């Protein structure tokens, strides 16, 4: 196994611990078993071609996307975006609200203010866990905002995220299981070079502890 892969695996495990805590909290809030998993992680340099992100975004993230974003600053500066397909999130919202089958039959793809608030809360729990996990590993405290929730078309989102001045993306592929519904999505953390270096230092430290 090469060094890069080992580092990715370490990062993956770190984030899985964080999202596991988020899943347990979400399960308690919605009173349903929720499983969250980060099966894969990638670090993407953003100064390449504009199409670069397209090749990394999971194929399921097509069409209309629902995105919760928080920004954080202090010793690490960046932005974290939780992305899921809007259609699947509508199903998830209906499950959270315990909507009856009949009510779900009438429900369409229009999101109400209440729906946006539910997504804000879910985004808050997951993103706090991920960014909080990151800052705890590095041993620093960050200043965060509450999530902003937006509905984007995939193409507009790719342009929006690449227009921001962060040279690196940390891409976490994430799966969300609630009852019979599985939702695939991603978390994109935009990082400055310093922030990425800080993070990789921690990973290297863990790697050294593991392999000497």
């Amino acid at each position, binding site marked *: 196994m090469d060094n890069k892969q080992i580092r990715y695996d370490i990062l993956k495990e770190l984030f899985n611990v964080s999202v596991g805590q988020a899943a347990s909290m979400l399960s308690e809030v919605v009173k349903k078993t929720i499983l969250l998993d980060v099966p894969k992680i990638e670090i993407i340099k953003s100064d390449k071609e504009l199409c670069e992100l397209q090749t990394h975004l999971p194929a399921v993230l097509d069409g209309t996307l629902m995105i919760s974003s928080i920004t954080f600053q202090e010793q690490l500066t960046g932005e974290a975006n939780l992305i899921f397909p809007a259609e699947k999130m509508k199903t998830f919202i209906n499950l959270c609200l315990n909507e009856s089958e009949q*009510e779900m039959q009438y429900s369409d793809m229009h999101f*109400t203010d*209440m729906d946006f608030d539910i997504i804000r809360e879910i985004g808050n729990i997951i993103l*706090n866990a991920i960014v909080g996990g990151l800052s705890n590993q590095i041993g620093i405290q960050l200043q965060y905002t509450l999530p902003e929730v937006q509905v984007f078309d995939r193409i507009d989102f790719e342009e929006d995220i690449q227009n921001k001045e962060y040279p690196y993306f940390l891409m976490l592929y994430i799966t969300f299981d609630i009852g019979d519904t599985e939702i695939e999505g991603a978390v994109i953390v935009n990082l400055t070079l310093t922030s990425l270096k800080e993070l990789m230092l921690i990973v290297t430290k863990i790697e050294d502890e593991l392999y000497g």
Partner: protein
Amino acid sequence: MDNTLYDILNEIIEGIVIVNEGLKICFWNDYMENVTGLKQEDVKENYIYEVLPNLNKRYFEQSIQQIIKNGCKIFFSAGMHRSLVSNKKEFNVKISLIQKNNSKFFLLEFIDVTNQFVRINQFKEYVQELYKLNQKLKVKEQLIKKLAYYDQLTGIANRTLFYKIAEKLIDNANRNNSLIGLLFLDIDKFKQINDVYGHEAGDKILKKVACILQNYTRKSDMVARFGGDEFIVLLPHFKDSKSYKKVASRIMNAEDKSIYYHSREIKISFSVGISLYPEHGNTIDTLILKADQAMYTAKNKGGNQYCIFE
């Protein structure tokens, strides 16, 4: 904290509660007093869980721990956490950390979204009504379609549907150089049956004939009631004129050509005229006219037989 700040927080049109690290209430603004009916002096120094028992959940405690650990902000949506403050109103809750002189405080903001809930519920009811109305309209649309294209008595195609489909079949036959046969059928002595046994018996006979025609033709053939006691059968995709004679013979020799009316058996017979596309005409009206003439030839020969137009 100085009094000016408290005065400002009392002017804010949202619930503001400040608790210390031990979760005891330090500040409870006027808005909270109005919503809960609890005065600040009564709740001050009390545990937030005692004053707002619906917040006493494990995830709330975990969130507080997370705020202390990470400095993050927490958001609870009214959609997922109903009646957090009162049974009459719904609130979104934001919790942030305030650090002052090495002390930690939590700022709890309660934002009233009751009107949103009311509007959304109204909207949902409206959508439900529209959905139900739409379902009813769909059923009615089907019924109207049926009334427009199908004969009410026999349930087979009426003249309107016949013309619609016949035009298409002729176009197809023209493109594929195939043949079409048209059988024009008239029930023998139908007027007499009506006069002797009444219209109820006549209707029974019409239904029976429709049934025979459907049973003795293929699914791809078209059986229609043309009007009164006249029926038309359109037979596409045949190779030669002999095939039409076979179909006509099968219909003529059907075994169940009778009905029972008040325990009396009434025998049914009919005369059939046949025209062929393209041999006898290129339009559906011409083919009907020729088949009608052939049917009269069959009637003039005594009925209960078929004739091909010559």
